[in-house]
């Protein structure tokens, strides 16, 4: 733990929300990302200070739309949501109670709010009353690399006949039964985080964790209207991936232990929070932990532009994508591959085959492309 605190510097660890936890699976082979995530480092701030701000922004229209849709679904004690659940689960839900777990007055700590959730979920699990209950804003938590992360409570848990379902509200549309597969996948990964956290909570309370269904209820606008529609989404695969990544995170300490003692990514913010760390020093520090850049990082990681720049400076074939890298049989740099292709470089051990292929390709390319 101290190791991670030193890496992060004098700022509190950035809490992991469900989105961040779901993103752990995006590029698990990257040591740089694993160490920074485990240490709770604000990668966005790091990237910005390095001069490579992350390319992600969210349009105010998208945010407004998301909030408006969620408000619509939850309006009047989740009336719309109940209608959906009745249709979807095919169950008579004569009366459903609505409990807002976030509503405990004052400005309590996450710990207190979690305790409140714990108490009510325990009661719900003991209660064998058949009526459905919606629990809004439950504050769940997960252990990540030895740290407790409280999850942003933008989710609803629904209990019916002793079973719990996680309800995930998203504002992308389902048109004629189909939605954008990447968005559905992201929703499934996030929902899996909540399923796991709620299961852990039940286990902690001595209940059967399997009472939390692996089928989450995905609520999205249908077709081109605002009317919400529900779909059941099986997240068993995402749960397996999540468990795998969490147990991996627990081992990140081993990577951290191999790093120089005095290494830190501290931005050394002044009283106003403005970073004062010399950029060249930070660049060197970040460079000390090996990354595994792939173009897919451009849509998932705050540090992507920095790592891409680094890969370009090294002339790495990673820059061109995994498929190119695979077609090159593992040749690591552009100049090496081109040297093998034009014959100016003698193939090293194990490179004879790719060298032969590249020579042949180079010959053919010369005949047709350069003439054209």
């Amino acid at each position, binding site marked *: 733990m101290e190791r991670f605190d030193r890496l992060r510097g004098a700022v509190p660890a950035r809490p992991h929300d469900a989105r961040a936890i779901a993103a752990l699976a995006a590029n*698990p082979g990257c040591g740089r990302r694993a160490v920074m995530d485990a240490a709770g480092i604000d990668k966005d701030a790091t990237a910005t200070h390095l001069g490579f701000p992350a390319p992600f922004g969210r349009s105010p229209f998208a945010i407004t739309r998301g909030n408006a849709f969620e408000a619509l679904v939850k309006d009047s004690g989740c009336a719309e949501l109940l209608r959906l659940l009745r249709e979807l689960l095919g169950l008579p839900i004569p009366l459903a109670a609505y409990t807002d777990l976030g509503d405990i007055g004052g400005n309590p700590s996450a710990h207190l709010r979690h305790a409140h959730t714990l108490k009510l979920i325990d009661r719900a699990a003991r209660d064998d009353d058949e009526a459905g209950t919606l629990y809004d804003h439950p504050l769940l938590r997960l252990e990540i690399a030895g740290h407790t992360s409280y999850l942003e409570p933008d989710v609803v848990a629904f209990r019916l006949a002793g079973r719990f379902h996680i309800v995930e509200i998203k504002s992308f549309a389902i048109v004629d039964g189909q939605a954008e597969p990447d968005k559905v996948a992201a929703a499934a990964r996030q929902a899996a985080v909540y399923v796991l956290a709620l299961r852990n909570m039940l286990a902690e309370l001595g209940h059967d964790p399997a009472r939390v269904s692996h089928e989450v209820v995905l609520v999205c606008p249908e077709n081109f209207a605002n009317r919400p529609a529900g779909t059941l989404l*099986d997240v068993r695969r995402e749960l397996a991936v999540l468990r795998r990544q969490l147990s991996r995170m627990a081992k990140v300490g081993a990577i951290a232990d191999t790093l120089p003692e005095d290494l830190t990514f501290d931005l050394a913010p002044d009283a106003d929070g403005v970073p004062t760390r010399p950029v060249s020093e930070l660049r060197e520090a970040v460079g000390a932990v090996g990354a595994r850049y792939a173009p897919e990082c451009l849509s998932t990681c705050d540090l992507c532009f920095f790592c891409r720049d680094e890969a370009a400076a090294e002339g790495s074939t990673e820059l061109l994508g995994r498929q190119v890298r695979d077609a090159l049989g593992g040749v690591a740099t552009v100049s090496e591959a081109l040297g093998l292709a034009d014959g100016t470089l003698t193939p090293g051990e194990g490179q004879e085959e*790719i060298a032969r292929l590249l020579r042949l390709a180079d010959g053919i390319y010369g005949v047709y492309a350069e003439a054209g």
Partner: protein
Amino acid sequence: MIGGMLSPAAEAAAVVDAVLDDLPRNRGVVVDSPPGAGKSTLVVRAAGHLAATGEPLMIVAQTNEQVDDLIVRLAEEHPDLPLGRLSASDYVMPERVLGKASVGTKLPDLGDPAVVVATADKWAWAGDRTWPWAIVDEAYQMRSDKLLRVAGMFERALFVGDPGQLDPFSVVDGDRWAGLSWDPLQSAVAVLLRHNPDLPVHRLPVSWRLPASAAPVVSDAFYPFTGFRAGTEPGERRLEFQAGGMRTAYDRALEEAASHGWALYELPSRHTLRTDAEAVQAVALLATRLVQRAPVAISERGERPVTAERIAIGAAHRDQVAAILAAGPPPGVTVDTANRLQGREYDVTIVLHPLSGRRDATAFHLESGRLCVLTSRHRHACVVVARAGIPELLDAHPSAEPVRLNVPVKFPDGWEANQAVLAHLSAHRVEAAPLR
């Protein structure tokens, strides 16, 4: 009696009886058959059973070879049953089928046999006649659109196949149909069960092919929810060599496989082309060495020499197969892709691991059915050739597959299946000798 206490033969027979009982009561019956669980035996028995009612029967298989195999088996078991074989005009009948069935390109050419067997493609051209009964073989490898072309011909059907093998595929993007219950790219069984969820699904519980060393590994990795067991006890199947070895790495790998059923012949970690020359050569040399060692298979069938015809080499890609053939494996040894090895059986197999030398795993490489086919063709032993580093590759694999609404999740997950097989193989690792 409790199921677990039945002998494998009694347990399997009970399932077959249940299937035959269900046939007249249902429009369709599905039988899941794990590798070597007696699928053909079931098809042959059910064919006899249905033919005995006096009603004609159509049998749908997927390839000409499967059709021929079925005819040979049917003729053996039911010598008095008149058989017919529909075939394309350029079909050349292999010797083993000669005289066992009337052959023709059109139904009227066949006379009026009790049972007619043909490929799904051929059946689709067979015309308007309606059959009271059909048996659809290898139904998990049949694409939904192929079933659509023949399903109108029969009133009731028995669907038999192995759910763990490779799913049908297409070279075109079928996203527009994803989630539809009649998605033409899913398997025949998937489309059938989505429209007829109440049909009975039986499962053959015993693999007669896989030895006791392999059945639990394959069952846990690829059939995690259903499972099956081996029909033989540990030690009942043996593989022995009549010629002595020289303690080379090849010999040690073969000996490990002979005594434990598995060996992992591990080459040094390196990212390579798909047609990794070193791995390809190792595969060919292992096969050569195996033949030189004059192996003998001892099993419930007695003691038999393992000839080249009883050995297969499997790989993921066609170019790998071509490269292995070019490296000169012993004549007579089958070398083919996982796709084409489906449904086949050998005494010993040598497998080039789909992830060997890869830096990143793609969905193709991770598809659990591919590894399942490759590691479940053998009666005695399986030698897997791979570069070191696959665990690291799996560990670094990003999990960001897109998710389509209303598409049933397929199990097992390729990642988990690969991990499970590898974990088992690591106990049977033999480090490769440096190449001369």
